[in-house]
């Protein structure tokens, strides 16, 4: 210890160590700035909580929204005090376009395209240059694939019933109709004077008018799901179009015994003792045939082919969609099924199977477009004063089944609408003078409630240009309610107004 004070160990080395640590700490800060300013920025600047988004909502006139013919669906109106609010073309589009309210935020396309409509999100290059211009915001006008006339007709056809209609062009994925009922007056929510009373009234309404049933409603599909089973069966090679099951005719009387459970049918006594093939079974909507097809296909393939058409995850779409499922997936069997009983029941659309109307339209579109569905889409172009017009083209979802398999199901669905027996299950679905394909569904809900009425289909069958899915909640058999609505709307589209 003696004299240690006079020996001076240099402090330079330890100082340099501290300098290195501090430099690394500052480098971490620079990295964090890069993370928030670049990596996370696209998410944050579009968030409805972003101050610029909120501020712009109060001062900037939002971009207009037009239908496919140029009819303005969402416009701006200045109130007496100078504040701008939205006015909408009518109630028929409320579930699609949604609303933009200073009090209740945004819904529908107004929410999904908030940043574009307020002009905050262009492409990165014009954004980088925007700061040098006088006008900070470049609101984009949206043009939709939606047809205002057809949409109004669909809402009128559903009437006072609760339900949904989806119509799309299978060749491009353009959604012409995305109707849900009951609907509501979005203009009254956008107008600050009437917003509170309107919105609170809607929230308390037990029929849930604010729910966009076409995209977020989840329903038991019943027999329309048989098309999914046919896709999986043919696609996986488990069946051929002319395959039959020899135990099927006998099972019509007493039911099909699966693991001790009886799958029952018995609603088509006229087919007698003939084993049915794909066309025959689809024409009379034979539960036994499809249960056997499902069992033959197996749970793994059924789930896999459904997934290719969009089941199991939100659909690639302009609006948020609910997830459609073949099974709730908690079973231990392949595909997530609990046992063969569930698989057999799911194969004709009962069990734990739930779907959105948009998903079922996509199933029909898969068949209509020869096995290769296109992504459904609403917005076809965006136009900004500064950024010009950006067109959003068709996007294939990937091939699901071969064109030959799709044609086989197409033929079966034609028989279900045009055949001698099929007509009875799909009354009114035929477009006069045009070969029409389709499948009706009657989704049993258990208990004493009326079943959901379903229809999916397309026309002309030879070269389909329109696909439709109709769901009417608890309205009875598919043939009675959904099928005629589908027929009328497809006729209207293919032949012009009746």
């Amino acid at each position, binding site marked *: 210890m003696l004299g240690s004070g*006079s020996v001076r160990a240099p402090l330079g080395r330890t*100082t340099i160590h501290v300098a290195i640590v501090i430099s690394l700490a*500052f480098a971490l800060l620079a990295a964090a*700035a890069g993370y928030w300013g*670049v990596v996370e*920025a696209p998410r*944050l600047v579009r968030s409805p909580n972003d*101050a610029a988004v909120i501020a712009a909502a109060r001062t900037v006139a939002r971009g207009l929204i037009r239908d496919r013919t140029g009819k303005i669906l969402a416009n701006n109106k200045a109130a007496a005090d100078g504040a701008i609010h939205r006015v909408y073309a009518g109630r028929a589009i409320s579930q699609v376009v949604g609303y933009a309210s200073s009090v209740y935020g945004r819904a529908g396309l107004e929410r999904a395209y908030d940043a574009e409509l307020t002009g905050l999100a262009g492409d990165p290059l014009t954004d980088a240059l925007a700061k040098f211009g006088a006008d900070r915001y470049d609101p984009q006008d949206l043009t939709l694939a939606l047809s205002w006339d057809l949409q109004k007709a669909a809402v009128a056809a559903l009437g006072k019933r609760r339900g949904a209609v989806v119509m799309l062009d299978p060749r491009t994925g353009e959604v012409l109709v995305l109707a849900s009922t009951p609907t509501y007056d979005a203009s009254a929510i956008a107008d600050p004077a009437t917003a509170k009373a309107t919105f609170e009234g809607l929230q308390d309404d037990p029929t849930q008018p604010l729910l966009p049933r076409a995209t977020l409603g989840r329903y038991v599909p019943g027999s329309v799901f048989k098309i999914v089973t046919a896709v999986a069966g043919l696609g996986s090679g488990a069946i051929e179009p002319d395959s039959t099951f020899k135990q099927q005719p006998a099972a019509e009387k007493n039911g099909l015994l699966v693991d001790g459970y009886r799958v029952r049918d018995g609603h088509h006594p006229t087919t007698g003792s003939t084993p049915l093939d794909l066309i025959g079974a689809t024409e009379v909507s034979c539960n036994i045939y499809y249960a056997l097809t499902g069992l033959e296909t197996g749970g793994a393939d059924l789930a896999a082919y459904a997934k290719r058409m969009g089941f199991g995850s939100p659909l690639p779409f302009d609006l948020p969609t609910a997830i459609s499922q073949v099974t709730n997936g908690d079973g231990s069997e392949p595909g997530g099924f609990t046992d063969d009983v569930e698989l057999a029941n799911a194969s004709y659309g009962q069990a734990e199977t739930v779907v959105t109307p948009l998903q079922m339209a996509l199933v029909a579109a898969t068949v209509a477009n020869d096995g290769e569905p296109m992504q459904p889409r609403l917005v076809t172009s965006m136009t900004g004063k500064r950024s010009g017009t950006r067109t959003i083209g068709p996007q294939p979802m990937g091939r699901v089944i071969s064109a030959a398999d799709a044609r086989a199901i197409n033929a079966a669905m034609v028989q279900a609408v045009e055949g001698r027996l099929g007509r009875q299950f799909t009354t009114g679905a035929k477009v006069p003078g045009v070969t029409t394909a389709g499948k009706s569904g009657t989704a049993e809900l258990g208990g004493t409630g009326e079943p959901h009425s379903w229809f999916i289909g397309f026309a002309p069958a030879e070269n389909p240009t329109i696909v439709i899915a109709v769901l009417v909640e608890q309205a009875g058999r598919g043939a009675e309610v959904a099928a005629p609505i589908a027929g009328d709307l497809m006729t209207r589209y293919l032949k012009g107004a009746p």
Partner: protein
Amino acid sequence: MTAGATRSVRAPSQARMLGPIRPRPRWLEFRLLGLVAIALLAGSLSLGATVTGRFGLFDAQALLIYIAALFGAHAAQVLAGRRTDQILLPTVALLGGISLLLMQRLPQDLVTQTFFGATFGLAQVQLIWLLIGLTIATTLGIVVRSDRWLRRYKYTWAAVGVGLLLLTFVFGTEVNGQRLTLQLGPLSGQPTELLKVILVVFLAGYLSENRALLVEQDTRLGPLRLPPLPYLAPMVAMWAIALGIVVIQRDLGAALLFFGVFLALLYVATGRVSLVIIGFVLFFIGSAVMAVLFDHIRTRIDIWLDPFADPLGAGFQVVQALHAFARGGLLGVGLGAGLPEIAGNLPIPEVHTDFPLAALGEELGIVGVVAILGLYLVVIERGMRIGAAAADDFRSLLAVGLALVIGVQAFIIAAGNLKVLPLTGVTLPYISYGGSSILANSLVVGLLLALSDKGVEPPPLPRTGSRWRRAGRRAAT
């Protein structure tokens, strides 16, 4: 060997040192200040163009006064003829200038103060503080030629510091849930800002004197070999004071700053990583216990972990700051074009004190943020260079400690803005609005300037050695 004897031995050199004052040009500083002036004028032009739409300086008067003051400070140093650091002042001047532009750009009614019947807005008050700070830094840099007043009375300074802390504990007024502000008549200030300078002075004195002893390893604690226990006492005291600040002042940031600087200096002095690790472990244990005991600390930590859980409530301030960085992107939206107001309110509450970096991140972009961080690194680098070149341990540790105070504080608040650390209430040195902060940080610049001149009074001979020799002589006689 007495101090008087030392002086007599060095008499010749002292005579040369105190000779007639000759002006000495400082061309490097002049050129750098020129660049700073150009940068600030460009910033003001950009701000003016954005806000008024015309090509012209924004509130030219305040900026020109500031630039004139910078060159005034430069001229004073030239005339004083000292060989002090020429990079420190321009670096800090740029930070202060950025602060002035930011305060000019914010709504002026965020802060209003009345001096002698005249009412000043945010930018004017900040300008006044900047000018006072500049005066303090320059004056210290010119006048201070001896460190004895710091070296000798380190325990007195420590007592003053503890006294300030106690005064704040007892008489402090609570602002935003933190008891940081001390009100004395018409003046109010945050003593912790001054306290951090006093802390460094004390630590430099204590550590330079006991370095050798702290390196000794004569206490065994399990596998750990620690310095003699009595010499660990100040360390434990520091720990207690830091946690006391957390509990009573509710000031997580100041505690982190004090303890961080303490550990860094301890490492510089002893080179022992084990002490630093023990210190950090103690601090984290203490903080964890605090988080369990006190709601406000737990809330802070919860907000830090996931501010987006409640983006419009508890996490609002932090989330809005992150949104500001996101809006700024790489290049920023431009001075004056950011911070969209919602119904007349700024998007980030307390932006002028707690979130200036977020505001600058939005308007100047990541490029601007990185540049500002770089400026702080320059300040740290100058401080450490001055420390490395200093004549003895005390001056070395003092210079390094002062630089660390700026660096660690800038890191803590910048990290809070960027969600790297929980948000705390410390200011961003030289940029945040606030008198206490600017004055204390100017004090740091002034002391660093004074320390950078090697022509000052030489340090006294090491006392430890002479005391032993004195004792030996006494025993012999």
